């Protein structure tokens, strides 16, 4: 009897403990490569290859100064370029996608069902299918080696994912609010600006944060549209770095890689709540 009693008491506790052990081990495996890169960025090259541990036995910041100056421009130049592209993309997506989403969520127009389906389908279209003609188009317009090919399409709501995200969100806003405003004589412009947008701040923030992270990480289109080293963004600069220095200076390479991830970490910390909710409801990556 007493044995059975204690049995009942320790079983759940043991299970809880086991669960934590699984989670901690899995967590360490997940995070270790990132910590290792961070630690390696503070080690002399020789030590990176000699010790798998995280605490540098010989601490140096030389990798950072060496990496910072190892391309034609200081690394801050590429960070600035990336920030310019990202700000344009964020602004474009927030403005254009919220406009389109309002129409899909609240307005009544012909073929609405059809256009909505077209919008959903365009989410699944691989970029590779359209990038060759896009390249031809932007080259005809003289936009190659400018940031325009990376920014202008965002102002045309081509990231349909965010249109969809905001449609989902707008639909949750009580209809009574805009109907009341309509009775008070407000037009759609005012309803959109003064009722929808203030209420939709979480959706706008999710869009902004995901656009930031995706554009910051985006490699293919930046690789294709920006071939002039003066226009390089962070990912392209890192790649050029890898090609020019190769195996010889992993420390400097890791240092710049760490720097390139810092803005992402900040966005992650800032937007965690939104990110988790955004991904749970729409399956954003």
């Amino acid at each position, binding site marked *: 009897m007493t044995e059975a009693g204690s049995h009942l008491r320790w079983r759940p506790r043991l299970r809880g403990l086991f669960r934590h052990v699984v*989670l901690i081990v899995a967590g360490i495996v997940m995070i270790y490569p990132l910590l290792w890169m961070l630690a390696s960025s503070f080690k002399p090259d020789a030590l990176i290859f000699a010790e798998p541990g995280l605490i540098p036995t010989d601490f140096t910041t030389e990798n950072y100064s060496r990496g910072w100056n190892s391309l034609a421009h200081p690394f801050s130049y590429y960070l600035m370029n990336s920030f310019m592209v990202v700000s344009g993309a964020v602004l474009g997506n927030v403005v254009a996608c919220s406009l389109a989403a309002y*129409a899909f969520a609240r307005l009544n127009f012909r073929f609405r069902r059809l256009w909505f389906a077209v919008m959903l389908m365009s989410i699944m279209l691989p970029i590779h*299918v359209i990038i060759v*003609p896009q390249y*031809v188009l932007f080259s005809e317009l003289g936009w190659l080696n400018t940031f325009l090919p990376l920014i202008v399409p965002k102002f045309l709501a*081509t990231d349909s994912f965010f249109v969809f995200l905001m449609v989902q969100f707008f639909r949750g806003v009580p209809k009574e609010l805009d109907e009341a405003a309509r009775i008070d004589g407000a037009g759609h412009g005012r309803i959109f600006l003064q009722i929808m947008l203030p209420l939709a701040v979480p959706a706008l923030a999710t869009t902004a944060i995901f656009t930031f992270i995706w554009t910051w990480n985006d490699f293919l289109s930046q690789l294709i549209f920006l071939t002039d080293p003066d226009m390089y963004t*962070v990912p392209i600069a890192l790649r050029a770095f890898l090609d020019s220095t190769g195996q010889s200076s992993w420390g400097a390479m890791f240092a710049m890689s760490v720097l390139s991830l810092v803005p992402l970490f900040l966005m992650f910390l800032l937007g965690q709540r939104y990110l988790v909710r955004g*991904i749970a409801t729409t399956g954003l990556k």
Partner: protein
Amino acid sequence: MAVPGEVSKLRKTAGPATRAPSEKGDGKAAALFLMPWFVGLVLIVVGPLLASLYLSFTNYNLLQDPELVGVENYRQLFQDPRLLQSLQVTFTYVFVSVPLQLAAALGLALVLDKGVRGLPFYRSVFYLPSLLGSSVAIAILWRQLFGTQGLLNQVIDWFNGIQPLVHIGTQGWVSDPAYALGTLITLNVWTFGSPMVIFLAGLRQIPQMYYEAASLDGASKLRQFISVTFPMLTPVVFFNLVLQIINAFQTFTQAFIVSGGTGGPVDSTLFYTLYLYLQGFGNFNMGYASAMAWLLLVIVGAMTALNFYASKYWVFYDD
């Protein structure tokens, strides 16, 4: 795309709006609000889509006008050994990494769902790699992790040091054609956090009463998983599967950086998208690249359609 719980609402969105009594339609307002999206759709999406279909029937190197060659590009596709290799690499990658990734995602979601203390912390730790995974920095890290002198070999050496009986060989995982693709598969599995978050949301929607009924019937935990959790979760599994397959087919950055833009060693990481890039923007065979792009579209479309078709037999909707 919505988590299945949302699908019914989605249908409502697509349906006709409830009309305000005095209103027939908002055509003019809609035209204004949809203008940017519509211009983008025509100029940036559908226009290029049709242009690439046209280019796929031409030889085009940007300098001379496109020259019509009929189905020649498509005929060449199936005789191009590198293209066939890239298909094989890509299919292997998709069919190995996606199931592993989803299994890891589901496994950890199940562990987390049981109400662990510090859940937001664990969730963040597992989710973070999904956000960073497609960056060049992580691809560079991976290239080094699995390099001859990389972390993996350091750990193996350390293990061999304390346990000399079970000796594991070290090698350049990235430079060995037998393992190079495996390193990229690991990278994709590592980003299981985003499907995991979706699984967590799905698990939360399963009514608790099913479990209560099951345990009254004396069902074991395993039995409950097989008879309650998994069937109730199949819509979410399906959703993740479709999404991750589409994503995996488009993998580019990781393969490009890890292989130094070549798809090597001996084309063992020549992903389809990488080969498309090399043909289009390396050799400026824009016509051939366009034909490749359309083949990709057909493959991804067919995979998605197949998925939807097969879903009738295993996805369970609780309406």
